[in-house]
């Protein structure tokens, strides 16, 4: 089930991440009050989404790095998804048409603060993306099947390295669809009411 050439998978994930880095550069050009504004009640600002993604990237960046440090595996031609990893990636992955199918609730330990600093969140996020690109490159010489990475759900629940990467990138892609949609809404709203930046103080 779901067998793919390891190098093809790594290249695909790397190019997804580069796409996300490109979008981050667009975000960097937005003023902070846009990035820190919630698009509606109970809905996250762009800065909050980034903090949410940073929470995952901090954890997985660290554990993947540890797992790859001094690993004893050799590269395998193919990667086969585990059933759980495959399931996680599938529910995260946005549809072909670039829409998010199922809404999900984030676990309590991954919820962002109320008003994180957008500049800080963005530069931290970018750092994580570059780290991920490097870890993926290092993984070309590792076995994506044999190395297993504990999840944030429980340290006993482990995913294959290839699944961890796939899941993580799918999760980021999903939230970037959310970010772009929020930005569109916030800008439209700003246009409608021609509100001044100072009007957003609350």
């Amino acid at each position, binding site marked *: 089930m779901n067998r793919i050439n390891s190098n093809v998978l790594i290249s695909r994930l790397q*190019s997804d*991440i*580069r*796409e996300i*880095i*490109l979008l981050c*550069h*667009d975000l*960097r*050009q937005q003023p902070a009050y846009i990035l820190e504004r919630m698009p509606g009640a109970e809905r996250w600002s762009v800065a909050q989404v980034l903090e949410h993604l940073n929470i995952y990237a901090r954890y997985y960046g660290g554990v993947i790095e540890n797992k790859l440090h001094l690993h004893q595996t050799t590269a395998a031609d193919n990667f086969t998804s585990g059933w759980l990893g495959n399931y996680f990636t599938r529910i995260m992955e946005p549809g072909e048409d670039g829409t998010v199918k199922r809404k999900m609730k984030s676990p309590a330990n991954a919820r962002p603060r109320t008003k994180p600093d957008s500049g800080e969140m963005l530069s931290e996020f*970018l750092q994580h*993306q*570059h780290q991920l*690109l490097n870890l993926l*490159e290092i993984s070309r010489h590792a076995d994506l099947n044999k190395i297993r990475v504990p999840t944030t759900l429980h340290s006993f629940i482990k995913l294959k390295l290839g699944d961890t990467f796939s899941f993580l990138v799918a999760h980021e892609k999903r939230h970037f669809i959310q970010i772009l949609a929020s930005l569109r809404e916030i800008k439209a709203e700003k246009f409608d009411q021609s509100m001044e930046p100072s009007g957003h103080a609350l």
Partner: protein
Amino acid sequence: MQVTDKDILKNFTDALLPLPETDWQAFSAGWQELTVKRKTVLTAAGETERYLYFVLEGVQRAFYLADDHREATIVFTYAPSFSGVADSFLTQTPSPFFLETITASRFLRISHDCYKQLILESRPINDLFFKATSLALQGALLRHIELQCYTNEEKFRTLLKRSPHILQIVPHKYLASYLGMDATNFSKLINTVRL
């Protein structure tokens, strides 16, 4: 006899500096094929360029994103020529540019490790890369003159003389950015300049 990708590479490098047969064998073994879709980011800003590309098909562009919403297209590449973020590749420091494919593209590419080994082991290969780098530097400096001293019309004419087919394959907003003018001025030139 069928022309292989490596033959195309050989035609290109022979025009720069022909390699002795044994050196060519070592050189050509280092290149691997890569096919990517359109609009694929090959190198992101902040990343260190790991590869030197040789374009077989497609068009690519390197661009810089400034913090004030402006985007500058620095260079286009297409077959047959080298591609990749040259400064980052040579210095192994983070790239200030993004490199992306404009159309679906096919390449041969060589890793920096492999390149380094080749230039250490073979004098002719070292000379070849030096020649290619020198020409790239010459091109970049000439373009600097164009950007600073030419009128919009002169820039436009020079571009079309150098790459006549580029109007058909590259979106005009990128061409305008490459020439350092805004899109409206560029479309005026297309409609008025007689070639």
